[in-house]
Each structure stands twice: as structure tokens, then as C-alpha cells.
């Protein structure tokens, strides 16, 4: 039982580490960030 849990934890840790590295170095596709709402319309407030 102990061996199974330890192995699960190892594989989870390795998967997490791989995901982190792939994400960090841009291998995984990144989520698109929202485009900044532009001002300058009628009520933009910048004037």
C-alpha cells in the first residue's frame, strides 16, 4: 500500500514538474489575455 502511494506521489510530482517546465519555456500554448479596453470614446475620461 505504502509503495503504491509513494509511486503515485512520484508520478504526480514528475507530471507537475514537466508541466511547469513546458509552460515556463513556452512549449504549451498560452491562454490569450484580454485586450486592454481602449479609451478615447465619448466617455473615455482621458480628457
Amino acid at each position, binding site marked *: 500500500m*505504502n*509503495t503504491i*502511494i*509513494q*509511486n503515485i*506521489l*512520484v508520478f504526480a*510530482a*514528475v507530471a*507537475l*514538474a*514537466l508541466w*511547469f*517546465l513546458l509552460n*515556463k*519555456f*513556452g512549449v504549451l500554448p498560452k491562454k490569450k*489575455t484580454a485586450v*486592454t*479596453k*481602449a*479609451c*478615447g*470614446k465619448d466617455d*473615455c*475620461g*482621458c*480628457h
Partner: protein
Amino acid sequence: MAKQINVALIGNPNTGKTSVFNALTGLNQKVGNYPGITVEKKEGICKLPRGVKAHIIDLPGTYSLNASSLDENVVIELLLNKNDKDFPDVAVVVSDVENLKRNLLLYTQIKDLEIPTILVINMSDRMTYKGIKLDIPYLEQKLETKIALISTRKNRGIDELKEVIANYKELSVKPCLNASEIDTDYFDKLRKAFPNQLLYKLWLVITQDVNFGKVDRNQIDAIHSFKTKSEADLKRLQQKETIKRYQFINNTLKKGQTIDLNSAKDLRIKLDRILTHKVWGYLIFGIILLTIFQAIYDWSSVPMDFIDSAFASLSEWTKHLMPEGAFTNLIAEGIIPGLGGIVIFIPQIAFLFLFISVLEESGYMSRVVFLMDRIMRRFGLSGKSVVPLISGTACAIPAIMATRNIESWKERLITILVTPFTTCSARLPVYLIIISLVIPEGRFFGLSYQALTLMLLYLIGFGAAIVSAWILNKVLKIRSKTFFVVEMPNYKVPLLKNVALTVLEKTKSFVFGAGKIILAISIVLWFLASYGPGEQFNNAEDIVTQQHALDNLTQDELDQKIASHKLEHSFIGIAGHAIEPAIRPLGYDWKIGIAIVSSFAAREVFVGTLATIYSVGSDEEETIKNRMAGEVNPILGGPLFNFASGISLLLFYAFAMQCMSTLAIVKRETNSWKWPMYQLVIMSAFAYLVALIAYQFLK
């Protein structure tokens, strides 16, 4: 709920703006980036009187609102965009008592944007020393604001400044200069075309040669299409504006400020004469560098030894404490040694940044920039290239971003391409561990051989940057104008708080930035070193026991043989053996090869990788250094890390482009993959060649 207001700290460089920010926010600050760009964004929270909370942003230093760099662009974009969540309720313009005239130009521009503006006059403790007297009530009346006369060094006036910020609603928003005075006809037309808008804001949008990313494109295009005047005419009007502003400032200071040069007791000129002297200047700089490297070695050896043995004990203790199994081994043999490989270098990194911070705070670094400009010019670089090259000792990434203030594209591109040669803090762990293994501990005129080697490596890096700049200057056919302007700040005794915060921030970012990558790589490496395919790995115990059945080995020796056999046939062992033919001529074995490949993510990973690989299967309580010292060359016998292979490795790391993040930032700054690819191929090939020659010559 307490009311929160936005406060923007704005000012010329070297006015002590960051000291004011530190005094207001203390440790309630965080450092990030502006969205979409890599300009540093510092913000913090300050508690003001009557329960008011202030969200303070320390904006990049700028001389005026006529932006000429990305940093300055950030300031103008924020001040022009009322919809920005950080748009200030009040702007605090920080000035320096000795350069009030120049600093007031920026103040008058911000005031004309009709934002409540406070003028902070910093370094008031130097007034008597410099023979300066200020008529504060008169200046407040003429500048239509409240003035806080402060000294961050003596911690004077900060409470008064907080009080003034809390009462920002009482401030006048009347402009200093009537924009129409610049050119009545032109501004009348402008007012008619955009009746609801602030005239000075329109003028700034028309005259700025920058991309307004945050402000609506349609509006910008509409204003730009209005221009009606040629670029040359607009430049003339800009000059007229500056002259009018200085007329206003001169009139204000004529009565508001008196300077008695007879009562000034200034050491600055005398010091400058020595520190920028064409012989003494370089000699003093050399002595300072030597002292720094010696101190890095001497002062940090005790805490480093302690950390090293503490991690070895922690690893051993974990094995005893946790139940036997794969996860326990992962923690004890993978994660702890991997992290130990980075934590051990905290003392040396902290000392390096302590010295750099003291040199910057004292004003000496600007003298170095001036001093080095004489040399840099000959190699196609600007004096301003010194800043990225010196910043590169911390990390090439901010250093490459710091090239943005170099006006000439050719000089900037050359600086970007050569900066990765400078010895960054990520190379330091690699250098330190290898130097300690292959360079003897003796001394030469009181300086240890190890410190001298480290200094030599820094000089090699700097020399490589200079020589490659010279070559690039000859090869690149880009025409561009070049000029050099640098401000010499006054000499100051460094503020302990500022130095401490810089050391803390830089060390923290080194440990946590690299630490996460090292932790992840340690886990993956441990897995690859602890698992493997095929009979040789799975039946390692039987195979080794049969092989050594007649050798009369003790149980410990047999266990070592089994662990070694398993490692060789693990996934990492197979990969390592595949690349071994390429690195064998350099004096490295497959384990070093794996460490080199994995350190492409970040150079400092090299030590953590070796620590992880050498720990797998080992039950001994051993330090990283001892494990590396105990490695034997499988072909030649004798220590693997000997003088020849050690020097070869040091030179490889001195020249190789071993950093993914740097390549990414070069791509972003040059907007092309062409330059980072050139860097990668040329630097790596050169590093390989030099390492090969060094090993073959020294072995």
C-alpha cells in the same frame, strides 16, 4: 473601509525617488512588470493620516514628458490615460535640492496636465553644505502647489509629506504655462478641432514620437492627422515650449532660491578629478574589483560550508524519518540536493549585490560609466553600454532591456549581442564549485588564487564582450548617429535601508526565479536517473552480483556498484552516453554532459543537476563538493574534475550561450529570431572550441 488613493512618484533619475518610495512604503512593496512590456513596475502601500491608504507607484525616472525611451513612455501613457486603474489622484514629483532648475521642467509639464501635483525637494540635508537657501512659501505660491522639503537620508520630512498627500484635494490644478503662449494661432485651431480636450494633452500626443499602446488609436490618429505643421515646425515649437518653461523656472528661482558658493564646502570636484583620472581612475576601479572578489570568497566561506553540510544532513535525516520508498528517495536524493545546489550560493550572491548596490548608491558607478566611455568608443560601443555590461553581472535579461536608453541602433544591437558574455550571477555557482575543486587554496600577495581566478573569469567575460563588439562594429553595416550624455550624481553615503532592500530583492529573485526551475528539473532528472528500460536496469542487482561474485566486496561496495550500474542504464544514463562522444574530447563524462544540456534552461542548474545525479542511489551523508571531488574519470582514472577538465568547463561556461530566457529576450528586443540564433550558434561553437583547446593543451 479605508479610502485608497493612487499616488504616482515621478522624477528625474538620481533624485532619490526610490528612497522616497522606500521611506513611504517600507516593506509593503512589490516589483513586477508593466503589462505587455518589460519595464519594471514598483508599487507599494502607504498608510496616510486620517485612515487614508495610498497605493504608490514608483514610475521610471524621466527628465521630461517628451519620451525618448520605453521607460519614459510608461510615464506619459499613464498620465494621459484617465481610465487606467493606476491613474494618479495625485502626482508627487521628486526633485533634488541641487538640481532644482532642471527638475522643475518635468514638474511644470505634469502640472499642466491639471493633475494635483506635489513638489518634493529631497536631499535637504545637503543645503547648508552646498550653501543653498530656499524660500518655501514663495516657491509654493509661484508653483501653485505644496512643497515637502525632505531628506530621506536623515529620515526628515516624511511625515509632513504624508500629510500633504492626504490633503491632496486642497491642491490647485492651475497650469504653470498657458499652452496657447507657445503659438497662439496653432493652439486656437487645435482648441476648435478638439473643444472638450485638454490643450496640453493634445500637444503632447502630437509631438511624441512613441506608440501609445493604451490610448485609443482612433483618437490618436485623429489628433495626429490634425498636425498641419511639418515635423521641423513642430520641433521648433517644442523648443519654444522648453524655453518658455525655463523662463518661468528662472523667474521663480531668482527669488525662491539663493546659492552662496562661498559657503559651499564641496569635495566632489576633488574626488571626481581622482576617480575619473585616466590613470588613477582605472587603477582605483581595478583595486575595487579585486577587493570585491576577495571579499566574496573570504566572507562567504563559513555560511556556505554550513549550508552545504546542513543540506547533506537534511537529506540523510529525511531518509531516516520517512518510510522507505520512491517518494522518500525523490525528496532525499532529488529535491533536497537540487535545492541545496542553489541555496548554497546565497551568501556569495548577496555579497556581490551588496557591493554593486553600494557602488551605485554612492554615485561611483556613474564615474565608472564616464571612465569606460573612453575605452568603449574604440570598440564600437557607447559609454552607456557599460550600464548593461555591469548590470549583466546580475543577469543578462534586465541588462539587455537596459540597452533601450542607447540612442544609436547599431550601438544598441552590438550591446545586446555582446552582453551575454558578461559573467552573470547564474554562472557564479558553476564557477565557484569548479574553482574550489581545481584551483589550489594558496595565496599571492594576500589574495587567494581562487579569488584571482574568479576575477580573471569576470575579466575574460568582459574582454570577450569588448572584442566581439569590435568585430561586430566592423562587420555590421548599419549607419546611425551616436552621442553620449551621462549625469554625474553627487557622492552620497549609501543608505543602509536602500542597500539592504536591493540585496534582499535581488537575492530573492535569484533564489525564487531559479529555484522553481531547479526544483522542477531536479524532480525530472531524479526520475530519469532512477528509472530505466530493459534488463540491464531492472536486473541490475543480479547482474552486478554475478559479475563480482569472486571479488570479495563488502556489502557497501557492492551497493555502490549496483547503484552505479543502475545509473548508467537509466534513462538519463542512456541519454548521457548518446552525447558522450561529442563531449569526451573536452574532458567531460556523460554526467557532466547531462548537466550541461539541462543547464541550457538556466546556467545555475548545472550544480543542482550534478548534485541530483551524484545523490541517486547514495546512502552517504556527503556534501555536493565532496561528491564531485570523489568522481573518478572512467577512462583515464584519477579525479574527473582535475585542472584540465575544470579549466575547460570554466571556459565553456564563460563563452557559451547557456540561457533560454536570454535568447527569448534578445528575440523580443531585436524583433527577430535571426540575432538570438546567431548568438546561440556562434557563442556555443566558440565555447566548444576554446574548451577543447584548453583541455587538449592542459591534460
